[in-house]
């Protein structure tokens, strides 16, 4: 078991990791920027280190400062949370070089899965269905046009290094493909410093379904079923749930087994998410794997009763996964709403500022993950997600009712939050029926 972990993150996920460490008896070192020094979650760590000013580049994204903080506090391992350095291969490599354990997969597994083309090849080797498309990168527009003719329109051009919707273009014919190819390449070059693109069949009105997996260093891998994250506004997830409401049990098991095959193929350890598109005929296609714990991991925790962060810590400490797949039961329905400091009535503009009023919801079936409190200040320097409300009930209908009453109870003021937007979505007929796809929000609201 680990004895001392540095938490290289901030806000709710830093608190989440500190909580898991404390329950396992692991000491924690919390690093923070000067902007975050007043947050009470820091008191819950055994030690704190101020690593820099508010600016992320000089604090949470600054590798030398974080490594140095681990060195001076004698931390044996670093948990990167999500975002910031969580999927930074250079950081993982430097940790290894410095003899500090990076709580996550090996550098090699990260390299394999973070490269979309390589990940796709690995999926094909593992007999995991992938979206029909290029075997490798598309190095000319002619090549792209030829492949589009073969697999049929619509197609999508994607940046190898892409993410968050950038470096992507959909094309329904030759002309739009010519334009899209050039635009995607230029955007990817500007955004990621890498203009390499590939091409895929464009799946129309898909659901975003992802499988939570966990592997240890002793050859064991288990899944924690799937999450449906189709409620996305401009490619940003807003509401996630588990299980996927339209998946039958047979398809579920096939999907989850496919995810495990990929993870084994990648010789992966620690937590990962394998993302799929699910089309209207319940065909699923691997799209990418995330080599970190994710924001929405609590919904999988609620339906399985398993603490995923504890598993990450135990695995990093060398422990084997000592439960079998059969021990992991899918129990009821969990839904998560992300609460962002954004104004839904003003195009979701960020709303940093002081929180004068704060009343979280509670009671049966309600979990709140947040570092907030009355008197806290939301800094403009960081992500606007400030809290997650997670509910768990025997049925989806009950889960929606519990989420509605929880959101009604949740008072955060005077800053604006996405609570009203989540309430609107939860009340929408199509959400209630589960008949949505990743375009639902952008089409409907």
């Amino acid at each position: 078991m680990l004895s001392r972990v540095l938490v290289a993150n901030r806000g709710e996920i830093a608190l989440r990791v500190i909580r898991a460490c404390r329950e396992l008896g692991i000491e924690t070192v919390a690093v923070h920027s000067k902007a975050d020094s007043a947050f009470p979650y820091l008191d819950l760590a055994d030690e704190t280190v101020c690593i820099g000013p508010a600016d992320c580049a000089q604090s949470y994204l600054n590798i030398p400062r974080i490594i140095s903080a681990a060195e001076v506090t004698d931390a044996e391992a670093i948990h990167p949370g999500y975002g910031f350095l969580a999927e930074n291969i250079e950081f993982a490599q430097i940790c290894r070089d410095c003899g500090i354990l990076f709580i996550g997969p090996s550098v090699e597994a990260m390299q394999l899965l973070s490269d979309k083309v390589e990940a796709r090849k690995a999926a094909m080797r593992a007999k995991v269905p992938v979206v029909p498309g290029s075997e490798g990168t598309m190095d000319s527009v002619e090549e792209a046009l030829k492949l589009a003719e073969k697999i049929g329109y619509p197609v999508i051009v994607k940046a190898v290094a892409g993410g968050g919707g950038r470096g992507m273009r959909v094309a329904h014919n030759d002309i739009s493909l010519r334009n899209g190819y050039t635009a995607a390449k230029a955007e990817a070059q500007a955004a990621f410093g890498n203009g390499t693109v590939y091409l895929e069949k464009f799946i129309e009105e898909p659901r975003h379904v992802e499988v939570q997996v966990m592997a240890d260093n002793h050859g064991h891998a288990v899944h924690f079923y799937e999450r449906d994250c189709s409620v996305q506004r401009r490619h940003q997830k807003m509401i996630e749930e588990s299980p996927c409401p339209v998946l039958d049990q047979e398809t579920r098991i096939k999907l989850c087994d496919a995810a495990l095959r990929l993870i084994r193929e990648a010789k992966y350890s620690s937590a990962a998410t394998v993302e799929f598109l699910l089309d209207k005929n319940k065909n699923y296609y691997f799209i990418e794997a995330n080599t970190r714990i994710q924001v929405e991991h609590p919904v999988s925790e609620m339906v399985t009763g398993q603490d995923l962060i504890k598993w990450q810590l135990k695995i990093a400490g060398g422990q084997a996964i000592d439960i079998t797949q059969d021990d992991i039961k899918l129990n009821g329905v969990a839904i998560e709403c992300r609460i962002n400091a954004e104004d839904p009535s003003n195009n979701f503009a960020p709303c940093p500022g002081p929180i004068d009023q704060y009343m979280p919801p509670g009671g049966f079936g309600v979990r709140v993950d947040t570092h907030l409190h009355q008197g806290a200040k939301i800094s403009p320097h960081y992500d606007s997600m400030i809290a997650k409300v997670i509910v768990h009930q025997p049925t989806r209908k009950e889960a929606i009712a519990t989420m509605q009453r929880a959101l009604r109870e949740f008072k955060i003021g005077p800053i604006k939050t996405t609570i009203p937007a989540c309430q609107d979505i939860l009340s929408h007929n199509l959400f209630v029926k589960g008949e949505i796809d990743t375009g639902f929000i952008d089409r409907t609201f």
Partner: protein
Amino acid sequence: MPKDNQDIKQIKELIEIMKENDLVEVNIEHGDNKLCLKRASAHAMTGMPFMGMPMPPQSINGSAQGVSDSASAADDGLIDIPSPIVGTFYEAPSPDSNHYVEIGTHVSPSSVVCIIEAMKVMNEIKAEVSGTIARILVSNGQAVEFGQPLFKVKPN
């Protein structure tokens, strides 16, 4: 606006009354004379002596010493030289060498005052101010965090 010291005295008295009684605002007008006093609300921010408030997080040297924003004059007229990075503080380039500075050493902005080791790199830290070293706040080999005051300098 106060006409004379008598007014100042009365204002002070009023402020005391406001504090004692938790007033947040007083407006008084006598003809053309107007007086308006407003206090920040009685909440946490006014620093009530309240035992239950969260303590400031423990700094890495275990002291309760705060982190100052930058070289800045404190009550005593001295200026802090804060650590610009996280690392281990060394007062000399090697164990056998002389210390970069001692109490009483005169420094200019470009004077090296210490080394902070971070990731095996020895970073020379410059004074960034002119003056005389008045106090050394950390000891050789001690871990320091970002913004932690290292020296106090009496400016010239």
